[in-house]
């Protein structure tokens, strides 16, 4: 079954797969995770702000994003971002947005909905005495959030946030639908060019599997180490 396998195709395309493809995938994953976390935390704070309108807007945003398939959202933003750019900059024509910027914006806005739910749960798990004590000490709302509530919420939720980032890492493969050479896109390009679908897709699967397994193993170790003894 493996007799007519051409393992050399992997060696030949190694640099392209990893230096171009995997670099793209990891950069997109990292930046989207950070951006999504920041934006998601803001949404969570909006939802918990106690202001009806602000909370309603945040709730609708989260529900809306979470009921759409990522593939559709990727297409939406790919076509929409140039027009949003035109509107923001007041340019005469829709502005040119590269594939990377377009997918980065997509993933930040999409993942923020998921990260915000995690951060909301994290913030809600902090005992009421913490912000109460902090206000009693004279800290403002923003200081209370920055120095008291959010650091604890972030720490409690770190394993779940990282698990979501692993999901995000796997989801970035969907930029394939825009024919962007991320890791899977690069593997697919080589596969098509050399007619080696079997080798390339098996290799891509193996790489994703190994990386995700290693990452979730790391998360489990971290979880055991940072768990707060109560």
């Amino acid at each position: 079954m493996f007799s007519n396998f051409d393992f050399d195709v992997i060696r030949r395309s190694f640099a392209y797969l990893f230096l171009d493809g995997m670099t793209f995938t990891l950069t997109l994953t990292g930046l989207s995770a950070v951006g999504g976390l920041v934006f998601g935390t803001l949404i969570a704070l909006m939802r918990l702000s106690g202001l009806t309108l602000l909370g309603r807007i945040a709730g609708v945003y989260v529900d809306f994003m979470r009921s759409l398939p990522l593939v559709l959202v990727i297409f939406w933003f790919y076509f929409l971002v140039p027009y949003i750019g035109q509107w923001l900059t007041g340019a005469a024509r829709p502005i040119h947005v590269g594939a990377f910027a377009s997918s980065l914006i997509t993933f930040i806005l999409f993942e923020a909905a998921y990260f915000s739910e995690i951060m909301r749960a994290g913030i809600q798990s902090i005992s009421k005495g913490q912000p109460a004590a902090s206000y009693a000490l004279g800290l403002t709302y923003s200081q209370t959030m920055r120095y008291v509530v959010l650091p604890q919420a972030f720490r409690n939720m770190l394993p779940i946030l990282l698990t979501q980032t692993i999901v995000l890492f796997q989801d970035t493969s969907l930029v394939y639908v825009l024919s962007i050479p991320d890791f899977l896109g690069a593997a697919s390009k080589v596969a098509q060019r050399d007619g080696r679908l079997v080798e390339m897709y098996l290799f891509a699967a193996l790489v994703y599997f190994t990386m995700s397994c290693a990452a979730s193993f790391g998360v489990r170790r971290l979880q055991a180490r940072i768990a707060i003894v109560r």
Partner: protein
Amino acid sequence: MAFALHGCLRHISGSERFVNYHWNWHIFLEPAPGGTGTYLDMLLSGLALTIETSLLAWIIALVFGSIVGVMRTLPSKTASWIGFGYVEFFRNMPLLVQLFLWFFVLPELVPRSVGLWLKQMPHAPFYTAAIGIGLFMSARVAEQLRAGIGSLPRGQKMAATALGLTTAQAYVYILLPIAFRIILPPLTSEFLNTIKNTAVAITIGLVELTGEARAMQEFSFQVFEAFTAATLMYLAINVVVVVAMRLLERSVAIPGTIAGK
């Protein structure tokens, strides 16, 4: 099968993105190329295919997920290790990659005659998508069920054993009926995820709702109308599923719990 990739790999031309946009909401009533009806009919047939694919995938996910979820809670070390391996296998690869493995790689690895049969099978993208997404989701269903069974008090299983029930009987009559009712809310989200994941099958040539919206955009250039309609249809499916599941949850809530009042 090469045709399947074509729709996705074709580079989206730059020029069509950079002209000023002209809205035309009447586009849905105009006839679509292909002579099968209007653009609206096109999107509705995509919606139907999305629903069919999700339902078949969900049945597969429930069947395999239940078996594996139970295996993970069995006293047998071997069974629980097999269950663990199954879940890790399907959870640690992107769905897109899994679909490619089923669609492009599997027919090459099996004996030639079987491979040929797989490649010539009618509706291959549909069955590949349903099975691929079903197995992908089954790992998640298994984890939910394991958590559900794990949340039951130990006394349930012990009492069942004390009454003389075999392990199989204890699962069928005691543990599973309670566990499934407990995990109904997370199962609802997993079903919604199954529906959303069918859009990934666009990459193996399944023209479901997102695929039809994309096709409409290519034919008519009315990209935002097409995507708006698809978005509204996905929202509608979500609302229907959530409402239906809430009714089901209420009718099967376990008396004596917070949910059951």
